[in-house]
């Protein structure tokens, strides 16, 4: 039986790679390496990565609430220094089985049969997974960047569904989950550059405690006010938490890095005993 062996959250702030102010960042890039080493040590075979489209992939003509890529992958298509835009190892059969389970269990997800992912999926896939392609990526896009947004509760329930789907799979896959997103950040608004460490701490505390209630209790208006429009990406963290109920979390790195625009949080969530 397949099993979820760990979950992670991590940012994908392009500023960290462009680094226009040339500020020291090796310790933050090292957090991706640390996660990759953990994934390798766990013997993982698949990574389900939750991310948001940044109005790069999906146009106003078609905006899915949930989308799973079931074919070949490459990216990130929005090129970033130090992050290769190259093929990403995928497992179409596994992805399709996840889609089928979702369709039978209350989530009518859309699919992409071939996908050039953006940095939300591309950064974790290229930096936090082994470079030999031994861990296959299954991208899950949620409407966290473009409204109408996925409801917070729905994001959590999606994670619960993923947990059930994995438990129903007859393979011996070892699966890691990755919630990709900055914590507080304002993108394209007059506040851009502001970081709210208090909001970031509240989110990380919830992840460490394994209790999603403080996050689920937030309204979108509160998130926008305290965490910015980019803060809507906490949905991806909730999906990971939904799949790892009661899991104990640990912050691997956090910084309101002055060279970027995002509260940069890296954390691990281990399954409950």
């Amino acid at each position, binding site marked *: 039986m397949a099993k979820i062996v760990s979950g992670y959250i991590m940012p994908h702030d392009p500023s960290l790679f462009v680094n226009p102010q040339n500020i020291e960042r090796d310790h933050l890039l090292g957090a991706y390496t640390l996660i990759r080493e953990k994934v390798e040590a766990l013997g993982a075979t698949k990574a389900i990565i939750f991310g948001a489209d*940044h*109005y*790069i992939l999906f*146009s*106003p*003509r078609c905006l899915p609430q949930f989308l799973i890529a079931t074919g070949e992958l490459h990216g990130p298509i929005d090129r970033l220094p130090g992050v290769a835009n190259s093929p990403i190892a995928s497992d179409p059969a596994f992805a399709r089985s996840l889609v089928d389970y979702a369709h039978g269990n209350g989530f009518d997800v859309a699919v992409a049969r071939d996908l050039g992912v953006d940095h939300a999926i591309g950064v974790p896939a290229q930096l936090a997974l082994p470079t030999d392609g031994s861990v296959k990526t299954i991208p899950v896009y949620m409407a966290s*960047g*473009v*409204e109408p947004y996925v409801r917070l509760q729905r994001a959590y329930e999606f994670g619960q569904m993923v947990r059930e789907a994995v438990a129903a799979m007859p393979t011996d896959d070892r699966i890691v989950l990755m919630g990709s997103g900055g914590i507080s950040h*304002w*993108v*394209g*608004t*007059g*506040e*851009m*550059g502001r970081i709210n460490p208090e909001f970031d701490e509240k989110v990380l505390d919830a992840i460490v405690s394994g209790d999603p209630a403080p996050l689920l209790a937030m*309204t*979108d*208006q509160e998130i*926008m*006010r305290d965490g*910015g*429009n980019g803060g809507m990406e906490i949905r991806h963290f909730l999906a990971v938490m939904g799949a790892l109920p009661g899991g104990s979390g640990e912050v691997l790195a956090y910084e309101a890095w002055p060279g970027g625009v995002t509260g940069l949080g890296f954390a691990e969530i281990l399954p409950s005993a």
Partner: protein
Amino acid sequence: MSYGSVEQILYDVSTSRSHREAFRQNPEEASGKYALTDAEREMVVAVQVEDLFKYGINPMLLMGFWTSVRGPQSIPEYLDRVPKLESRLEALPG
């Protein structure tokens, strides 16, 4: 009101090299095939990010549109001009 068409032309200019070049060369003509009102077309053609933001355009899309037309080096000017998100919050559902 054709909010979706406004977002569509911004999206096309942001993500397609041919659309971007066409818009840069002749924004009036490039916007002609989109079903925009006169007021919308004026905001788009003049890259009036203040008004487009107030109109409700997604900020990420708006910034992408701006940098596609004016170049990434113009981000400081964009941030000087674009309103704050807090100005929109009252309109959001709780």
